[in-house]
């Protein structure tokens, strides 16, 4: 049940995602063609895009508990939780947000976030560690097609819970007791209305609206074992999830990332009244497709007419179901519908699957087992065969600096020898297992003579083997893997070998100039003590370097060993060269749209579609 639970709170406020943008262009990873202008604030690939000085910080800003429910009833006004803020760490640095890869920017992960509930006097009532999570279900929530219009969702759990003095909140005591068995809380939030105006107070900030409920034993961390509503191409509603709670006699529907807005950070768009129904599949002569049994409606006056509704509810609607309705929804598809184009619904089979963790950073030779949860009608689905297929369609290969050198994605496939099929166990979980190989360096520039992007990025799509269970496909839903290249440096290890790594880091992250020039041997040696600290930390630590988490363990180990004995070696003069091809596009328009919107538009599947469309035109 996770955060969709009769005991839950909703919060709202702002977030900051102060990512750097120089690394938005894979072409900027080419040390040999890198120009100082690529670090400058600007609008396109010939400079550093819209926030080259970003430091990757992810922060919760001014978030407040907006409402809380105990057994689905609003908690009494005097409960301390209602005055609480939802804040991040107060004794360590901010969390970090990092893309998986320049060619997979659509699963950015939050690392090292601590979440606190803070009462009006400043006392911390709850402190928990956020398990790193990636966003999913990104879509254009408002008109405009830019990052400002985009919305996505993060679901994860809080662990290592520390509770404070809860004497003033029966709600929090109940939440504590409910979460005791699993030791976790379930947290989900939606992020939208990202501000890209560097003159604004909210630059690199946006709106965050979310929910916290108890974690229960056996629940996955990042998805709901529930009822999954599939968006329709061109439809006005996005993917969303419901949970039926038979014991509580209700259905929770999370529309937090499903309803469009009138503009960035604006109120929800009035789509008219929305009807939740379940299909009664019994066919009669009068109803050859069955009939829809209404379960309830959401009045436009509620979600669109009340500007505070979204922040207060996080978009979660609770429908009370009677025994007859509960019986009807047990094994029949749910749908939310309204006017034309307003529809999301479950697959006809009621089946759905997804990997719990769907973002992986792997080294060659690593054994990995990825849990894929299959469910039907909201219950774990045992004995189902799950197929796995390599699918790079959602990855974003491009090079705005030199289109002739666009780093390829998804090859060599032999480096990810995964099983083609797996069967779900009694818990509905199928395991995608493999021992990774070495991808080599397929993304090095200059005919593989220059340094480039480490390793390779892959996409693997899971689906039901049984056609009867298959349904609509969510294109953004696949497993993303960054598989690093093997790295066995020559000994003795010298600066010559490591310089390209440091230089690339210096190029891509101008924020480092506030500390040192990472491309300068003497400065690196002079700061060895700090670098050892930062490179030696676990990637879950918010102080870990690189903040982008894109340095392989092998390279990290080599750097740490070299910092103990930083030999220079014979200096090598590295040649700069001009890009070999012409710039494909004036790209200021792309960068104006922002990193995510641009990445969406350059997915391989979209590039192919565009190609095909162009070819088909007379």
């Amino acid at each position: 049940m996770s955060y969709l639970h009769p005991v839950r709170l909703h919060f709202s406020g702002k977030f900051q995602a102060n990512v750097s943008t120089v690394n938005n262009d894979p072409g900027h990873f080419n040390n040999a063609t890198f120009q100082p202008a690529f670090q400058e604030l600007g609008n396109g690939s010939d400079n550093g895009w819209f926030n080259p000085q970003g430091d990757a910080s992810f922060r919760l800003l001014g978030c407040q508990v907006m409402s809380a429910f105990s057994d689905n009833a609003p908690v009494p006004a005097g409960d301390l939780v209602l005055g609480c803020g939802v804040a991040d760490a107060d004794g360590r640095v901010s969390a970090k947000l990092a893309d998986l890869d320049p060619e997979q920017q659509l699963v950015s992960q939050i690392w090292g976030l601590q979440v606190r509930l803070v009462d009006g006097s400043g006392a911390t009532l709850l402190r928990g560690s956020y398990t790193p999570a990636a966003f999913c279900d990104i879509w254009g929530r408002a008109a405009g097609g830019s990052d400002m219009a985009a919305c996505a969702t993060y679901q994860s759990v809080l662990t290592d819970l520390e509770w404070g003095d809860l004497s003033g909140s029966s709600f929090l005591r109940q939440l504590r007791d409910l979460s005791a068995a699993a030791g976790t809380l379930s947290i989900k939030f939606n992020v939208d209305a990202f501000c890209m105006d560097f003159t604004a107070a909210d630059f690199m900030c946006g709106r965050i609206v979310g929910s916290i409920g108890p974690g229960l034993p056996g629940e996955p961390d990042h998805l709901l074992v529930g009822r999954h509503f599939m968006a329709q191409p061109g439809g006005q509603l996005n993917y969303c999830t419901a949970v039926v709670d038979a014991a509580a006699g209700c259905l929770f529907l999370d529309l937090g990332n499903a309803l469009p807005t009138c503009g960035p950070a604006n109120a929800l768009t009035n789509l008219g009244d929305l009807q939740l129904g379940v299909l009664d599949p019994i066919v009669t002569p009068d109803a050859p497709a069955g009939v829809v049994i209404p379960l309830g409606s959401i009045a436009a006056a509620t979600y669109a007419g009340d500007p505070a509704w979204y922040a207060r509810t996080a978009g979660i609607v609770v429908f009370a179901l009677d025994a007859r309705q509960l019986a009807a929804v047990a094994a029949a598809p749910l749908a939310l519908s309204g006017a034309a184009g307003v529809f999301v619904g479950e697959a006809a089979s009621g089946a759905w699957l997804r990997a719990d963790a769907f973002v992986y950073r792997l080294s060659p030779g690593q054994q990995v087992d990825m849990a894929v949860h299959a469910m039907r009608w909201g219950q774990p689905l045992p004995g189902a065969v799950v197929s796995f297929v390599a699918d790079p369609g959602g990855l974003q290969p491009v090079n705005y600096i030199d289109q002739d050198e666009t780093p390829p994605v998804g090859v060599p496939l032999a480096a990810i020898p995964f099983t083609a099929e797996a069967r779900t166990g009694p818990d509905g979980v199928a395991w995608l297992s493999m021992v990774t190989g070495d991808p080599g360096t397929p993304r090095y520039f200059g005919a593989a003579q220059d340094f480039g992007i480490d390793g390779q990025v892959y996409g693997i799509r899971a689906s039901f083997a049984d056609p009867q269970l298959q349904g609509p496909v969510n294109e953004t839903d696949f497993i993303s893997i960054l598989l690093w290249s093997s790295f066995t440096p020559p000994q003795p290890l010298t600066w010559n070998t490591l310089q390209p790594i440091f230089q690339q880091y210096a190029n891509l992250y101008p924020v480092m100039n506030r500390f040192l020039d990472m491309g300068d041997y003497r400065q690196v040696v002079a700061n060895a003590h700090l670098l050892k600290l930062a490179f030696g930390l676990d990637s879950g630590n918010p102080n870990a370097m690189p903040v982008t988490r894109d340095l392989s363990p092998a390279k990290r180990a080599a750097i740490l060993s070299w910092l103990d004995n930083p030999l220079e070696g014979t200096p090598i003069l590295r040649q700069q060269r001009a890009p070999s091809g012409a710039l494909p596009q004036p790209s200021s328009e792309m960068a104006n749209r922002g990193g995510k919107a641009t990445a969406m538009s350059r997915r391989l599947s979209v590039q192919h579609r565009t190609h095909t469309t162009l070819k088909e035109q007379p």
Partner: protein
Amino acid sequence: MIRLNRRVLERLDPQTPDVDGICTTLQYAIELEHATIPVYLYALYSLDAVRNPEIVKIIESVVFEEMLHMTLAANVLNALGGTPAIGHPGFIPDYPGPLPGGVESELTVSLRPFSMAQLGMFLDIEQPESPIVYKAGRDALEAGKPVTIGQFYTAISVALGQLGDGAFVRPARHQVGPDLMTNAVVVTDVASAQRALAIIIDQGEGTSTSPLEVTGGGYAHYYRFMQIQKQHFLLFDPHVGPGEKAYSYSGEPIAFDPAGVYPVPPDPSAAGYPAGSQQRALCDRFNYTYTALLLALDAFLCGDNTGRQMDVAIGLMMSLKSQAKAMMSGIPDPGRYTGPSFEYQASDPATAR
């Protein structure tokens, strides 16, 4: 020269020193050592490090030692069974204002971008008593006279000597040793406590016979800063005189490039930036991080004296450096320069909770 209000020593009766009195005085010492750090950092990060590299290095080196001094005072306090109190709003002085306990009205310390005038204030803070004037014990407590920082620490040192080793908690508790911080002293008895306090005195003021530090190997802070005013590094120079006089500001030049100072405002406050402005947001974010550092140091000096917690604090220091250097140099909005105000702020933004 800072002259301290005698009030700060009133708990140190050399005839009958008591542990509580010394602990109160040591807490005050921690606050005093900390109070100079925002002043130095504000000037430090107002400098374009490319255009003023020597000055940056000099100020940075002093800040490192002020942090060591805080830690040394905390070690002595912990060794006596006391508890440093760092993570609370009253720990940070108001800027502009006197240093904690200061009595000289003309020495108001302020957050200003670097200038030769601001350097003059640094010299005032660090100016030592004339050589060989470190008077101890009752002399320092002569009625009616304000006390120098050197005299202040010497008085504590003398009081500890009279208290004896029996006053120290065994086993030693909450000590930050040299494994965690270079030149830190684990305090277990009178001798080690006096060694810790001597480091504070000699790094700040020099020894009675030389501008050189006993510990650390550099010059005492006053002489380090004086190099900037004299625009040359200080050198050992036996031609100019014997003993402590055998030094002159005749080394490599130290250029000050006034164009390499960002035009940040003097003595900023978060409330002084317009509500809803980017400057207010940046200042709030800095203050929240600064407050987190105080809380992290509080934990570090109150029992979590681990390498892990030290790393947490260093991470916060690096974050503060990064934020300050950005906001003071016009990032993200070129031409808009924001000074951090170093205020205690438990939430971000300050107004929300």
